[in-house]
């Protein structure tokens, strides 16, 4: 008798659970493609960490319109073939509503035909201006265009009445995009490039290039690269006693660069997203609230400083959240709402997308910072 009662009870309870889970709306699936391993892991890792952090926080506070988010992340290893396979898997098997990433311009360009064909919105975390120029219907991006950083540097040089510059760029995607922009914008800002050199991503000594620059008559040096190359250049310049002002790109805007370059970093000027100077910003700054929230959160979850790479993923997810809140989780609705995003103050800048602009940022996405006493200071 008791046995029978237990059986009925179990049956009823399990039926109730089943009904309950059927009533709760299924989660909204979002795909993430990040170069977590491989040469671009310095981008992919903070991006993945940030994405997971943001999703768990959105879910903890009740999800979007009562539905939880489910983030499915695949590692592209910075390889175009793997990125395409992973994108196919996200779209065809996992049936995601939108994809954030990939981390690099190369991976993104490879994935674009897949996303466009399947009509799934893609929010890239890579910087290359090719991604959204020309505009592709389903593709958006959150990382600042390199051209904006170049403009910031040239304006500062102009103010200092410097017209002859030497450029030294790394021979990878980041460096070649920077070099292209530096050359393209020089004339418009009245700059003359008197020396144009490159270095390999793994080079450990750049004295040859710097010696050549010393003899070129340049009044300033602009170096475009990601760690550790620029730190080597800063050290070499100091060893050579090169007195020219040294400009770096936003590729080194983290404390890591100061650690690597040591005292040689003193006085270096670079354009940067606001995240490294979040607490120095005036309270009137529109991004300040988002920036402080992101930095604090990242510190809490990963015990490390949030950088602007993680910020790209933060922006992508928050833009997506906004779009789903305003519309639905249908891919076409997400795309339409993304395009209608106005004045969203994120980590990379204040985003305003439109049918002709899927990059969404203006020149003020960057601020110029100078390294003083092993810390960043705002250049007024």
């Amino acid at each position, binding site marked *: 008798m008791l046995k029978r009662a237990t059986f009925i009870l179990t049956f009823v309870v399990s039926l109730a659970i089943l009904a309950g889970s059927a009533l709760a709306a299924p989660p909204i699936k979002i795909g993430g493609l990040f170069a977590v*391993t491989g040469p671009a892991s310095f981008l992919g890792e903070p991006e993945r960490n940030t994405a997971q952090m943001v999703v768990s926080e959105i879910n903890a506070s009740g999800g979007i319109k009562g539905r939880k988010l489910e983030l499915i992340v*695949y590692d592209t290893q*910075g*390889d*175009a*073939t*793997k990125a*395409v*396979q992973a994108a*196919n*898997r996200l*779209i*065809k*098997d996992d049936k995601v509503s939108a994809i954030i990433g990939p981390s*690099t*311009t*190369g*991976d993104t*360009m*490879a994935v*674009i*035909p897949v996303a466009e*064909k399947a009509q799934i919105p893609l929010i890239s975390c890579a910087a*290359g201006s*090719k991604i959204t120029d020309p505009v592709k219907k389903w593709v958006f991006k959150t990382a600042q265009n390199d051209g904006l950083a170049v403009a910031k540097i040239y304006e500062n040089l102009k103010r200092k009445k410097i017209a002859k510059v030497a450029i030294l760029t790394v*021979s*990878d*995607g980041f460096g*070649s*995009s920077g070099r*292209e922009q530096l050359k393209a914008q020089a004339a418009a800002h009245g700059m003359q490039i008197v020396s144009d050199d*490159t270095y390999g991503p793994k080079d450990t000594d750049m004295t040859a290039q710097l010696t050549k620059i010393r003899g070129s008559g340049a009044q300033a040096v602009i170096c475009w690269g990601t760690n550790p190359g620029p730190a080597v250049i800063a050290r070499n310049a100091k060893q050579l006693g090169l007195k020219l002002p040294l400009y770096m790109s936003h590729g080194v805007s983290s404390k890591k660069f100061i650690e690597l370059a040591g005292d040689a970093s003193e006085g270096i000027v670079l354009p940067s997203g606001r995240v490294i100077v979040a607490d120095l910003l005036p309270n009137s700054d529109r991004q300040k609230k988002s920036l402080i929230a992101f930095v604090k959160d990242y510190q809490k979850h990963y015990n490390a400083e949030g950088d602007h790479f993680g910020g790209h993923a933060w922006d992508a997810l928050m833009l997506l959240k906004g779009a789903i809140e305003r519309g639905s989780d249908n891919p076409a609705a997400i795309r339409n709402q993304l395009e209608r995003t106005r004045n969203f103050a994120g980590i990379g800048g204040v985003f305003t997308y439109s049918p002709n602009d899927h990059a969404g940022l203006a020149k003020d996405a960057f601020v110029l910072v100078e390294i003083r006493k092993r810390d960043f200071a705002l250049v007024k």
Partner: protein
Amino acid sequence: MMDKRSLLKHEAVKFIPFALLILALPMAFREGYLLNVFVFVGIHTLLAVALNLLLGYAGQISLGQAAFFGLGAYGSGILTATHGLNPWLAMVLVAAAVGVLAFLIGFPILKLKGHYLAMATLGFGIIVYIVFNEAVDVTGGPSGLSGIPNLAVGGITFDSDFKNYYLIWGITLLTILLSLNLVNSRIGRGLRAIHDSEVAARVMGVNVRLLKVQIFALSAVISSVAGSLYAYTMTFVSPTSFGFNFSVELVTMVIIGGLGSIYGSFLGAALLTLLPEFLRAFQDYDIVVYGFLLIFMTMYMPGGLVRGIPALVGRIAERIGIRKKVDA
């Protein structure tokens, strides 16, 4: 030695079921992403077969195969996307050019043996990779070259995984057939003679120097065709797909699959392409598991999967047989 007819029968018994299996495979997953992965298995099989002819049969190592693959991909990409050439014509022109290039560099390079040959081919691979990366005006540099068209025949454009599967596997099966024919011919016996002893081969009247260069060039041409197919399938190429790592991956495919076995090349290519997809379940530890599996396979299946799997099956069957006896 087998006479011609029984040899033909022997190969047909293996090839026909294999080809039928491959052709029937898409029915199993329809339009899922695994079909997309199997398209890449086809391209990798083509590359592994090409390398196996050189490494498995002639015994000549090449750590620069990714360069020929990349030259095919970039050549076709540039000719079609930048210069608007017909994709089929571009594929043939590029394959011919790569063949001539391999023929020319083959003469000096293939005089080297063992580690020195490995070094020379490695150097070639790295030079080509650097050109892809640095010649920004031509190749698009590190952020790649996009806008490459799909192949088309008559009214059919090969723009879906389903169509590309049959296109690529059609070419791959044809290449396998030609390779089987080659290795069972006088040339194949010549290659194996070179593998065992170059001096002995020369004594037997094999033109060792020419034959080595010819097989090197053939291997390059097949790799170039694979590269073109890759470019037309992806409609995008970037340098990271053609680096040193990929050359090593190809050598691994050939060795894991089984040196000197055309079907082994398929097994190796399939395993190395599919395994990472299934290991994603291990999340962050997938690379560790992958590494261990490769170590175990080379330790316990030194002849490659093509010889190791039948041996393993045999051993298991034997053990079950013994158990049955004990039970009874």
